[in-house]
């Protein structure tokens, strides 16, 4: 997922879970059935899982633009300072 997708997934997840919780509680209370509350909520959790957890394509509509390989070769890579590190560890 890209960054926008992650934000979207989090928002959808929070809203869906809260909405299903409210619907489940109200339905259970009005019908006088604790089991109905649990069933509606369990269904809601499952549905939310299916929508927000897998890496669906619509979560990747703003993909990160990585640097093109041909462009990267034109610029020198930074060198790792190997010799000074060795002196420090021997002390």
């Amino acid at each position: 997922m890209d960054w926008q997708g992650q934000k979207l997934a989090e928002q959808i997840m929070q809203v869906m879970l809260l909405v299903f919780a409210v619907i489940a509680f109200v339905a259970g209370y009005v019908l006088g059935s604790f089991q109905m509350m649990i069933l509606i909520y369990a269904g809601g959790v499952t549905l939310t899982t299916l929508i927000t957890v897998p890496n669906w394509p619509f979560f990747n509509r703003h993909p990160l633009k990585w640097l093109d390989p041909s462009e990267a070769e034109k610029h020198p890579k930074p060198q790792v300072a190997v010799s000074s590190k060795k002196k420090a560890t021997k002390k």
Partner: protein
Amino acid sequence: MHSFGYRLNVLLTFAVTILALMCAMASLSDNLNTPSPSAEIQIMNINWFQKQPQGNDEVSLTMNISADLQSLFTWNTKQVFIFVAAEYETPKNSLNQVSLWDAIIPAKEHAKFWIHTSNKYRFVDQGNNLRGKEFNLTLHWHVMPKTGKMFANKIVMTGYSLPEEYR
């Protein structure tokens, strides 16, 4: 939210936290219920009334217990546990409570009932104080919830007494 496992963890944690809140609200909703139970116990017969070899009095009696406890049930009630206790005073104990009978009511439909029964548990005194004893019969109930707080209360019925002599 960068990986499958991370999102699954967040979802499950949030879902379980919300479930805990829903259960707390369900338990709080029990306080909105105003129960109006009623009960009556008649002692049909004193079957026998003896002094045991150890020196303690024992009574066997047959009761007719009728009650309407339907108003105790809410959507959050798992079952109602009821028991009948005989309560009386002796020189040794300011309060004696002896459980004579109990039952579990699993659903509202079964909460309006009558039963003709002898005492399920033995009515034995600590001593030999029961001759001519006046006692109360109390119906206690525990409303056991599906989630949250249990409510307990009772109805005290007075005016019962045992025979003056052993039978």
